[in-house]
């Protein structure tokens, strides 16, 4: 609202001040509430289609052209489904959990800038806010699992909580690298620091040695925090029936799906902001046209990240629980810490080529070391003995 207000004020000079203020307050909220759920709806369709292609089938193609109305149909179906609450469930908590799970995902978008100066709230601590709010989803997950009074739900919830709490640490640390490089916690500033260079592209943090590592860490962390494949153990159908949302049906179930997707998209949005230059790209600028192009860039990148998520989901197998935790604590966390040191090198070493060389060597060495150290014991070829 702080950023939109002067913009609106300048554009609609003849409107009364209070109207501008209210508009500046409401428009971002309305935007967030309208656009991102819409993207969510679209994503479900795209995901199903893409997964279908990956699995050599068609995917939904009956409702509308190319099945484009499928999300609508899904929504309608799920709205009229019976809402079942288990008799022994903790009613209030059971009801509250799906509502709460949507909130953190939406809150994160508050600090994700979509065009120059266009961010709902330009918090000075934007990145930290996004990360902090993201962690609140664990509470909702736990509530859901616990309130269902179902041991699969509870196990799923406990797994989810352990997973999110574990992966939060390397994710935050990967974010710290960017914060260090940008010297600011504000998302707008971070994006602006990535501007310039060749085509407004070459300065994105992902094109730095530490940035690449951070990007990979952040994407992995984001996948794990939103419990997407290959980190979807908490809701693994084959192991836990449905995890924490086993006992949910109807619209509450839909809210869970929505919350998950929103969280995943939110992480994707933060990733875009931190590493992929946010709204930056050739043609993005501060004018009206420039802003529109910037928005296109942002949503294009967001779509790219979502596509990446779908791609990963379609192609990768699920991790085991011990592998999941070991991966977070033994590989990602050390790598994230090493990455922070790399940013330190980057910051203090001049000239640039030296910094490039040193950080690259440092990171490569550590990646190799960590991989070697964590390499699982090579199993001998199995021999069967018949006595």
């Amino acid at each position: 609202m702080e950023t939109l207000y002067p913009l609106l004020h300048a554009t609609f000079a003849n409107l009364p001040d209070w109207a501008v203020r209210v508009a500046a307050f409401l428009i971002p909220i309305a935007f967030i509430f309208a656009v991102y759920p819409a993207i969510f709806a679209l994503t479900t369709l795209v995901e199903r289609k893409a997964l279908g292609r990956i699995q050599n089938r068609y995917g939904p193609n009956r409702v509308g052209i190319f099945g484009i109305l499928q999300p609508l149909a899904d929504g309608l179906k799920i709205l009229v489904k019976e809402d079942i609450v288990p008799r022994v469930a903790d009613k209030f908590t059971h009801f509250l959990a799906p509502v709460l799970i949507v909130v953190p995902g939406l809150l994160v978008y508050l600090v994700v800038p979509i065009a120059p100066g266009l961010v709902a709230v330009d918090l000075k601590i934007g990145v930290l806010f996004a990360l902090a709010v993201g962690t609140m989803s664990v509470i909702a997950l736990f509530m859901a699992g616990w309130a269902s009074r179902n041991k699969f739900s509870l196990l799923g919830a406990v797994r989810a909580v352990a997973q999110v709490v574990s992966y939060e640490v390397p994710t935050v640390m990967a974010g710290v690298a960017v914060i260090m490089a940008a010297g600011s916690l504000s998302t707008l500033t971070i994006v602006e620091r990535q501007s310039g260079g060749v085509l407004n592209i070459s300065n994105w943090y992902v094109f730095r040695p530490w940035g690449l590592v951070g990007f990979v860490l952040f994407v992995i962390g984001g996948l794990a925090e939103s419990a997407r494949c290959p980190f979807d153990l908490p809701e693994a159908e084959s192991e836990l029936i449905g995890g924490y949302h086993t006992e949910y049906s109807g619209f509450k179930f839909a809210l869970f799906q929505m919350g998950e997707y929103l969280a995943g998209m939110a992480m994707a949005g933060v990733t875009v902001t931190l590493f992929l230059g946010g709204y930056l790209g050739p043609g993005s600028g501060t004018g009206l046209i420039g802003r529109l192009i910037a928005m296109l860039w942002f949503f294009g990148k967001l779509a790219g990240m979502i596509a990446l998520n779908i791609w990963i989901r379609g192609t990768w197998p699920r991790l085991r629980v011990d592998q999941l935790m070991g991966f977070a604590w033994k590989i990602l966390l050390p790598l994230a810490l090493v990455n922070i040191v790399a940013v330190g090198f980057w910051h203090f070493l001049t000239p640039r080529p030296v910094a490039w060389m040193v950080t690259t060597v440092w990171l490569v060495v550590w990646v190799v070391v960590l991989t070697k150290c964590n390499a699982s014991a090579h199993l001998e070829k199995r021999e069967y003995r018949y006595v």
Partner: protein
Amino acid sequence: MNIAFWIISAVAVLGAVLAVTLRNLVHCVLALILFFIGIAAHYFLLHADFLGTVQILIYVGAVAILILFAIMLTHNVTGTDGPRELLGLKWWSGAAIAAMLAVVLTRAIQGDKLAAALPAGDRAQSSVAEIGKALVGGWVVPLEAIAVLLTAALIGAVVIALEEIRKSR
């Protein structure tokens, strides 16, 4: 912003009251989370943005989860508590002492000239950069001490909680 103060205060007080009175332990924790969020909101209101975020990260993201896990690990999955001794001496004396403390503190604050004399208002913007500089500048030793403390607490907690496993081996 007056309204914000009252709303947030109400939420925080409600959360605190529910946290210490509810029957179900898990509900208590959820109420405690509400209280934590209320406090964090107060920090935002007081322009301590960074602190508010830290509050959410640490209390909601870590401490509350820790308490939930502790409840689960004490084999109390449903979170039910024992019967309440509402009319017991213990309950009444505890409540009375707390109430007395509240009264005394409130009276003291009201009587305090300092609190009344201080003007309310917004003077400058706090800067995260300042906090950061202070943390790695003059306050680096306390910071390190806290780091050591947390490490020690981590190890200590693991050791205490792992006692059984060690014994069984």
